[in-house]
């Protein structure tokens, strides 16, 4: 993902914004949809909220307690958890989906605006890190 910025040597990191976790629904993985003021000049509030909401929905899907997750848990227990040597867990499948979604969002929406979303899994599922880039060739600030 950072390759987008390597070909433009005048790009520098201006600052980073960290979207924190929202624990109001318990310990499930959910991020706050509050729009940070640093992004006001860069991106639409609606667009940002939509991205975060989709991420929240994806994490909710990964952590959903239901028939499928119970079945996976029971099957794994019966095989002394050796089944995970050949099978991917449901959570891992959704994490791949999330990685693809973030890459897609970065390419289509965030990179053209000089922003970069970092996959929360690389920050311990604690924050969504948004890097704000500045193009020196245009002039200071934006």
């Amino acid at each position: 993902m950072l390759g987008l910025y390597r070909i433009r040597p005048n790009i520098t990191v201006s600052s980073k914004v960290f979207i924190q976790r929202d624990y109001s629904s318990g310990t499930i993985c959910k991020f706050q949809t509050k729009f940070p003021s640093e992004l006001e000049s860069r991106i639409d509030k609606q667009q940002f909220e939509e991205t975060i909401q989709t991420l929240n929905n994806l994490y909710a899907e990964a952590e959903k307690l239901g028939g499928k997750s119970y079945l996976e848990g029971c099957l794994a227990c019966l095989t002394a958890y050796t089944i995970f040597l050949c099978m991917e867990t449901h959570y891992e499948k959704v994490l791949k989906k999330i990685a693809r979604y973030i890459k897609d969002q970065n390419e289509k929406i965030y990179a053209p605006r000089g922003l970069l979303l970092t996959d929360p899994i690389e920050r311990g599922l604690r924050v969504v890190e948004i890097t704000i880039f500045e193009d020196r060739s245009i002039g200071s600030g934006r």
Partner: protein
Amino acid sequence: MFFPQSCMMSSLQMRICRKESSCCVHIILKTLFFFLCRCPYLAVHLCPAIPVFAVLLFLFVMAMLLRTSFSDPGVLPRALPEEATFIEMEIEAANGNVPAGQRPPPRIRNVQINNQIVKLKYCYTCKIFRPPRASHCSICDNCVDRFDHHCPWVGNCVGKRNYRYFYLFTLSLSLLTIYIFTFDIVHVVMRSMNGGFLNTLKETPGTVLEVLVCFFTLWSVVGLTGFHTYLISLNQTTNEDIKGSWSGKNRGQNPYSHKNIIKNCCEVLCGPTYPSVLDRRGLLQEDTLISSSNPVPQTTKTTAPLIPNEHTPDDAKPSIAASAEKSPSPKEEHPAATKVPPLASPETDAETSIAKERAH
């Protein structure tokens, strides 16, 4: 068992290693003795399936023990410098101007979960606000998500990711111990019927010792399994039980419980398999190729002293801070012998020691 953030082998960890290996050795020896001395007689005179089932159960116990010991309990990685600075700025903005000489207010965030106010505490070692149910383990020197306790017999913390393996380990060990105990008694009874009790004791030395060992192991392991079954049905952790977070006047207010025993059990034992967030950090180091004009000094993390946890009494803080050493970076190695064990707050130390006494 040993994670990048605390790679040193202090004398404390050597002791823990010994406890874990003694636990392993105890289980192996007991089963081996049963297998070699009792099973031939029982297989011939009773049923050949007896040793087969014993082997399967033993393999399951060892698999669960190794899985608990060597899996990531749900360690929360330390905040990178920029994230730590961002959080510090937010805290300062929230606190406003503190007059010189006055203690700044404790770093706490309040969050409402299911109509219950939960306090999120700031971890000075990891530089993060701990998620609900997370706690900092002083032995592993890491924040662990859904921290239950640090188990010296298993040599690892028990947390969100490996609690089910720990529970299955204690459950299967209980079953194995009951199984061996029962068939030891059956074996003695059967031999006594043929040749008299005293003759049996002469022919099979070690019977008395093994029965006694099994008997005492049984009570502690079955007791531990029972305790954890109780915790699971209420969706509580050992840590919360010890602190009395959801008991006494707070009884029935556990915001994490589904108020349904079966649902609680299903969530804890058959819930989703959470990913480890530790491995990725190894990959991350190669990725930061963007030249940064960020004014945040990169030395912040490596030179900042270990600040005592906010649980430490305020008057103890200056003395702890004075003897503090540099916070280790993930790749740094430290000499084991002279190194002071990771700074522990009295509370986390008390928690782990009480957990040990209570649980074992």
